[in-house]
């Protein structure tokens, strides 16, 4: 952007100061988590806090650089379900984000670009589901899922979250601004409707798809209550369950706790940093405009 080229003004300095303050606010706790995962409880709660794990800590006899991580993975009784739980979380979150993108874009497209009877009613009905807290429908939902014999299965964890009302909302809002002329032109060319959806609508919705995908991934990755209820056996549990369980067991070992939190966040970090260019605020919009 070159619209304000000129000397550095006071306003600009102030802007930078504010941006950096916010930056410190958002990043400090994360750096704290990373640093603390190498420390023992005493050091984490030392006053004043030092940001560098002390040397004597690493050289002491019963601790190595990775002691906390070892504890985080092995738990107390050397039964490493950590990776199994990580895998479960990944399976559930990936599947749900793919289905959400697929179903929400389909539905959002239908609602945004077609006129049919009951369209607004359907939209409103779907929107209204956003206003019921999950805690309220937990038990009826559990009955549905247990009626389908899906307790303690991946299906039971995945299917109830295959699409979200918010996803439909977001896709619809985005597609409302999508130029109808493209679609009409394609129709004149004789393309079938499903074909238009898959070869015109979807490819042109990349930024919103990326945003929605990562959002639903995160939501599922974060989901605690539902897996708590549905994923009962040790091998079906997910990472948030692992962490809450771990924190109850290791209440006094803050170092191992932070190591566990850090490890559990790594997949999310990887996904987020590798996909960031797709969903970081309107990146695609920029590109198309500049191009």
């Amino acid at each position, binding site marked *: 952007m070159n619209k304000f080229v000129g000397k550095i003004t006071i306003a600009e300095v102030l802007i930078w100061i504010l941006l950096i303050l916010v*930056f410190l606010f958002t990043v400090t706790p994360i750096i*704290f988590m990373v640093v603390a995962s190498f420390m023992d409880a005493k050091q984490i709660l030392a006053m004043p806090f030092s940001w560098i794990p002390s040397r004597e800590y690493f050289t002491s006899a019963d601790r190595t650089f990775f002691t906390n991580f070892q504890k985080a993975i092995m738990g107390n009784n050397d039964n490493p379900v950590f990776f199994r739980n990580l895998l479960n979380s990944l399976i559930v979150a990936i599947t749900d984000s793919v289905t959400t993108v697929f179903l929400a874009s389909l539905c959002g497209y239908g609602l945004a670009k077609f006129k049919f009877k009951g369209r607004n009613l359907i939209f409103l009905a779907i929107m209204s589901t956003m206003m019921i*807290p999950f805690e309220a429908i937990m038990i009826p939902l559990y009955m*549905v899922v247990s009626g389908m014999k899906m307790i303690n299965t991946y299906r039971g964890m995945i299917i109830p979250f295959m699409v979200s009302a918010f996803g439909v909302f977001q896709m619809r809002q985005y597609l409302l601004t999508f130029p109808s002329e493209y679609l009409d032109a394609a129709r004149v060319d004789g393309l079938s409707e499903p074909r238009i959806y898959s070869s015109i609508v979807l490819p042109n919705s990349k930024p919103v798809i990326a945003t929605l995908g990562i959002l639903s991934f995160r939501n599922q990755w*974060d989901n605690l209550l539902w897996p708590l209820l549905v994923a009962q056996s040790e091998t079906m549990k997910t990472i*948030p369950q692992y962490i809450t369980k771990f924190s109850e067991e290791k209440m006094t070992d803050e170092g191992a706790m932070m190591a566990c939190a850090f490890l559990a966040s790594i997949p*999310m970090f990887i996904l*987020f940093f590798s996909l960031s260019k797709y969903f970081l605020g309107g990146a695609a919009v920029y590109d198309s405009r500049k191009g």
Partner: protein
Amino acid sequence: MGQKSYSIERKQAKWGLIFTIPCLIFFAVFSFYPIINALITSLTNRRAIARTSEFVGLENYIYIFTKDNGGFPLSNSIRATLIFTIGTFIPMIIASLIIATFLMQLRKDKYRGFFQLMYYTPAVLSSVVAASIWMIIFDPRGLMNQISNFVMHTSGVDYNWLVDSTMLQISTMMIYFWKYIGYFVILFITGLAAIPNTIYEAATVDGSSRWHTFWKITLPLLKPTTAMVSIMAMLQCLKTFSTQYMLHQGGSSRFPIDVITMNIYFTGIRNGRLGRASAMSIVLFLIMLVFTYIQLRLTRSSEDVEY
């Protein structure tokens, strides 16, 4: 001609319905049914364990508005929820709008990308992780007291972040704000980025000041984004659960942060009073509906802005 366009429309309508049907079936089973179930349950005295279920009319509604629900009345929950929502959502919208505008002023895309990335990172962490980090930071010996003592020029004062009822509420707001600020900044930037450069260029040519441009051009054009972002932020705040729940699990007392969802959880799940808990969810639903309606009115005609 008329005949033909009619049939095209019919065909089109058919496809529209086909596209929405998979979602509709899904929502029918996993959302509408449980919601209707909750609505019906709210008119009964159903208990989780007893499974008795007699129709009691509006008794649950009268109860939750007049009685104290075992020490945790709905009125307190509404207070806690509203304080949390207002204290979180308004600062968050204002701050994210300001930050997004500032970010757009940066000369290099590289910096903007970097800041966006860093602001968003907390949103990537799961609530469980976020709560466990903050509980250590809010520990009396933790970072927060050290920073506060430094800033306030005091020494060794315990600000009781997780103990005092006011501080506890501020703590939940802070965690929430920290988690979602980046997310809303990005939503605003998406909206800002969609405003064509030519508009700004025209304004600069006209000699408008930056401030003027912001108020007269950017803000009105940003209305649809603002509407969407604020409705979303508000609904999210009204539904907040995990932050409060995790802090309560960590030992903080429940009363000051007993938001409606938490009360629903404890009344319905722990104490097994499903009828009463369902009535509370319907109340929460109505609250959200009213707020959304007000918001939509305030940002009327937001959907059809033409650039």
